[in-house]
């Protein structure tokens, strides 16, 4: 009986994972998308066509959908009018900012890959592992950091003020959004390209040189073909992420610089669900297409066997000569830019949390947090419940995401058709924005779903845990699957020949041997849950189940201490501290983060 149950355990776990995915992801998202194509239960293209034909959304492209036959004439008129300015609409702007963000991320990230792959210096390893950090930092906190750095009373203007310059206003401009996106995605470019660069076998370059290629030709013929797929993968991923970016744009751009994602959120808040659903459907279709592109590139990239030695490194610093070498001077300049973009916002967050707008030391903001905690007014956002909620939701997400992630990893490493299904299951959450998942869960789980005549509802907190688990479990899989795949399968065979069932072999032999990867995946999942904002902000609305990032966002608007970011930076510092701990856990256990 026990053995029978054990044998059934894995198939049951797979079924349970699929069922959970259906409840927390596919059904809610499907409901949102269905709203765009179903009106009163009848299929219709109306809402989507409304969006596509609205110049506000699609700009000049609306003619394509409104009057396709008039397009050629329209183009001729446009040429005749001397190429007048064209409106690109909300989708056009979203793609435009994503494109610029991608270019900026590549520009900021690529030299980093060069430094990390080709130079030798003290702190190389630390710097390498620090490239994971931005990914686990909550985006709303980073946004506050950027405000603290570039805002009217921010660190940058304080600094410029010393020289009597300024103030400059970067906030609520496109460059602020793009720099913040580069903060997130440049490390992705750096990391993927560094890995590819290190996989170049030096013997290949040496063979090319021996056959008469110049250093440049050898680079072009041997190194570039290896780097290019990694670079394209990173660029496509960056485009997907920044196309769907939400908190950064919300906090740094507001509605004037709204992207599709922010606009969906705004439509939901004004209870225009049909239009939100139509927007969500179009956005999801676009991002699914891009994700497909990404997966194609990624598959092409998996080739490096790890055999052979990587290219030799040169010392980055060589005494005073360092300052005479133009290459090294350029890298020094690059280092300054990197410091400004990456260290600046976090440092500003810490400094602004203890400084008044006049530049004096203050503890008022932390006192504000305590005061909020003591306040009795209904609707007060208190810091302690936010921290407790974040930790509880984080733990709850782990309970769901870790088993789910392991089950998908087991399916994915088994090979065959099942593994491709696993891959698809895995990639879907990547292509659907958090706001849409949150919206779907709001409509299905929180408002309730009628099934067999009963209305099933899940309380807000449970729905939040669902949403976090759906966002976090791919990170568990991404860590566990490669470790499981490279583990000698004879260990499992040996255990089974000694009488252990498949489940026992997994629990007693395989998982203990890859414990580091499991824990790193769990730490990732925890960090994702702690920082999740997109769906939480929808699900926590009007509830006491707000988390730290949501509290942070509410404090941004809190003007009780004057028009400054003080309370938000204080809360941000607390959040930074907690996510920093997750990062240390991930780094110590060698986590992977390439999605």
């Amino acid at each position, binding site marked *: 009986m026990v053995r029978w149950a054990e044998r059934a355990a894995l198939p049951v776990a797979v079924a349970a994972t699929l069922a959970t995915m259906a409840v927390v992801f596919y059904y809610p998202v499907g409901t949102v998308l269905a709203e765009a194509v179903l009106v009163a239960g009848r299929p219709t293209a109306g809402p989507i066509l409304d969006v596509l034909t609205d110049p506000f959304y699609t700009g000049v492209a609306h003619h394509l959908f409104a009057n396709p036959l008039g397009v050629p004439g329209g183009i001729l008129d446009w040429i005749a009018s001397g190429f007048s300015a064209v409106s690109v609409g909300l989708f056009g702007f979203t793609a435009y900012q994503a494109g610029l963000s991608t270019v900026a991320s590549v520009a900021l990230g690529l030299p980093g890959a060069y430094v990390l792959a080709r130079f030798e210096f003290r702190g190389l390893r630390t710097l390498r592992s620090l490239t994971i950090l931005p990914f686990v930092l909550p985006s709303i906190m980073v946004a506050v950091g950027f405000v603290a750095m570039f805002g009217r009373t921010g660190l940058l203007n304080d600094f410029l003020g010393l020289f009597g310059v300024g103030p400059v206003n970067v906030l609520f401009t496109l460059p602020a959004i793009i720099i913040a996106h580069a903060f997130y995605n440049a490390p992705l470019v750096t990391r993927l390209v560094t890995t590819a660069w290190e996989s170049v076998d030096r013997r290949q370059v040496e063979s090319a040189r021996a056959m008469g290629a110049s250093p440049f030709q050898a680079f072009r013929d041997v190194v570039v073909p290896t780097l290019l797929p990694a670079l394209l993968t990173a660029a496509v991923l960056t485009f997907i992420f920044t196309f769907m970016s939400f908190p950064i744009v919300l906090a740094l751009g507001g509605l004037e610089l709204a992207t599709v994602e922010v606009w969906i959120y705004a439509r939901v808040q004004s209870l225009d669900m049909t239009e939100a659903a139509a927007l969500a459907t179009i956005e999801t279709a676009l991002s699914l297409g891009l994700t497909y592109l990404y997966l194609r590139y990624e598959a092409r990239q998996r080739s490096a066997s790890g055999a052979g030695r990587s290219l030799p490194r040169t010392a980055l610093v060589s005494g005073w000569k360092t300052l005479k070498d133009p290459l090294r001077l350029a890298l020094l300049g690059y280092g300054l830019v990197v410091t400004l973009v990456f260290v600046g916002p976090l440092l500003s967050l810490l400094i602004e949390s203890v400084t008044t707008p006049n530049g004096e030391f203050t503890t008022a903001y932390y006192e504000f947090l305590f005061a909020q905690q003591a306040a009795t007014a209904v609707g007060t956002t208190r810091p302690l419940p936010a921290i407790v909620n974040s930790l509880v939701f984080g733990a709850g997400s782990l309970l769901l995401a870790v088993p789910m992630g392991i089950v998908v990893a087991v399916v994915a490493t088994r090979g065959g058709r099942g593994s491709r299904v696993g891959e698809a299951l895995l990639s879907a959450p990547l292509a659907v924005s958090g706001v849409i998942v949150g919206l779907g869960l709001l409509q299905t789980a929180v408002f309730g779903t009628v099934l067999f005549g009963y209305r099933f509802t899940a309380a807000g907190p449970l729905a939040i845990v669902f949403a976090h688990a759906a966002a976090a479990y791919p990170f568990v899989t991404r860590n566990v699957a490669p470790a499981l795949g490279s583990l000698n399968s004879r260990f499992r065979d*040996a255990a089974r020949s*000694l009488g*252990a069932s498949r489940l026992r072999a997994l629990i007693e032999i395989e998982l203990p*041997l890859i414990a580091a990867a499991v824990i790193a995946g769990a730490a990732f999942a925890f960090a994702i849950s702690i920082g999740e904002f997109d769906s939480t902000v929808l699900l926590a609305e009007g509830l006491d189940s707000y988390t730290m990032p949501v509290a942070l966002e509410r404090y941004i608007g809190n003007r009780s201490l004057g028009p400054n970011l003080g309370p938000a930076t204080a809360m941000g510092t607390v959040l930074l501290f907690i996510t920093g701990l997750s990062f240390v856990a991930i780094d110590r256990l060698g986590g992977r983060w390439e999605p």
Partner: protein
Amino acid sequence: MTGVALNDISVAFDGVPALQNVSLSVDESEFFTLVGPSGCGKTTLLRTIAGFEEPEAGTVEIGENVAGVPPEDRNVGVVFQDYALFPHMTVRENVAYGLRYRRPPEGVDAEERAENLLDLVDMGDMSDRNPEELSGGQQQRIALARALAPRPNVLLLDEPLSALDARLRERLRVVIRDIQQELSITTIYVTHDQEEALAISDRVAVINDGQVEQVGLPERIYREPATRFVAEFVGDNNLLDGEVVSTDPPRVDVTTRSTNGGKRTGHGKSTGDGETVISVPQLPAGADRVTLSIRPEAITLGNGTAPVALSATVDAAEFMGDAYRVHCAWQGYSLLVRAAASEAPSGAITLGFDPTDVTVLENG
């Protein structure tokens, strides 16, 4: 104890056949070896018996038909090529692992059973070590102890010695054979080393290209190879192509090989020295073209009075310690002769042998 029977087993990976219609029967307490070149399917066959692969067709019987029985319920012990000792457990924990699922004999606890097995393989003082601290030979012994601890009905060994150096390999194969005899456990042993196979087995099956070429006692496999593949794979051998010239008495004309590697039949009598007709003990029924197999040790050097005498020249002689391995050129063939001479032969020599030492194989 039980024997193992394989009935018409076929296994394929992604449509590519790995084993085709393999039938074998291993007796109770027998030491049975599967030998063949790498990629021939011998490991796949072992994994099919253990339950790691499901056959597309055919049945495996370990006492009874075990179709659909998962590996954990087949009660077989497996020793893997790379040992697969669990690195997160001590030696004792490794050996005791199987006893979590299959109880040790009455009155013996798992700990005690593990220690007994470690004593059996002479590793009693290693029980608190981690497997990774041990040498390859020691790990191999522990893997054997671990496989035997739950008292399996059948012991399967997949190239257990191939990661070890030659001397250790010879010593450990004696250990394995002794333990097998002591426990009289049905054992199936996989190796690519034909010498090892002949040395320790009760019976041997030669596998090639997913099919069984020959099954039999080691002596029979060596002396009476059933196919050209077996004749070539097992031991050193000389193979001559021939054409049947008469069946009564059985006589074969050896085909001359042109030096550029092509073949020319011995019919060209006009060329003078081309024809060598040998009287053989017997012919396969209905055969037209055949292969003659003569072991190097059946040929003598410089014996002009032998029933068959060939005029050859020495190409090279390798000193082996107790004898020379002499490579001779004759009619486009390179013939190998084992000569217990005191100094290396050279130049023109006569090769003599008795036709009764010749095995005639059907060409196919």
